[in-house]
């Protein structure tokens, strides 16, 4: 049973436009939600996080929104750049489970110049 879901395997966006990556989760006990970015032939790199007690966190061009009632979060990238083309993993962790990080299946973002 997938606890973290990313229902869009891929997304294409024009350079300069907004990219919106979505994620849904089932476990209401998660304490933090995370986004990792992965380029081919590299390991994932941590991008941004949000605590379960917040509804928004912003870091430069990246903003994560959390809707706890809907068990939904999204990552907004504005403006999108070709270098943002990568696989984005949504993830979550519960501090009651040894801080174990549960990853979603990923969404492949292509930013078209």
């Amino acid at each position, binding site marked *: 049973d997938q606890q973290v879901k990313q229902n869009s395997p891929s997304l294409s966006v024009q350079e300069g436009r907004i990219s919106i990556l979505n994620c849904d989760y089932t476990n209401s006990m998660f304490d933090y939600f995370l986004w990792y970015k992965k380029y081919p032939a590299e390991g*994932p790199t941590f991008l941004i*996080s949000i605590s379960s007690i917040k509804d928004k966190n912003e870091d430069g061009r990246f903003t994560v929104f959390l809707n706890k009632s809907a068990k939904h979060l999204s990552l907004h990238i504005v403006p999108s750049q070709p270098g943002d083309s990568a696989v984005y993993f949504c993830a979550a962790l519960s501090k009651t489970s040894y801080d174990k990080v549960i990853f979603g299946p990923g969404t492949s973002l292509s930013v078209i110049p």
Partner: protein
Amino acid sequence: EAEVAQSPRYKITEKSQAVAFWCDPISGHATLYWYRQILGQGPELLVQFQDESVVDDSQLPKDRFSAERLKGVDSTLKIQPAELGDSAMYLCASSRTGGAPYEQYFGPGTRLTVT
């Protein structure tokens, strides 16, 4: 910038053979993780070490997989015997003591193909 090192980067082995992967975390990082990533899926935690002690190995198939971190620094993950379904990317990550547990630093991974 310090990085997590993994070797080999690629490994092809026949089923029923033994295979081992090595990971050297960022210096000073007490927590080390081994993940398996099957194509089209996200990384799945196999085992987590705090120094030399196993914190979580609930998803490690213990009949064929073993992991050790004898001196609390580098780590080895072994599969014996390998099965076709073990073909995947094996990722190692580390995080620093006192840091956010989700700020894990990943190595480039070992791509295993079992034939």
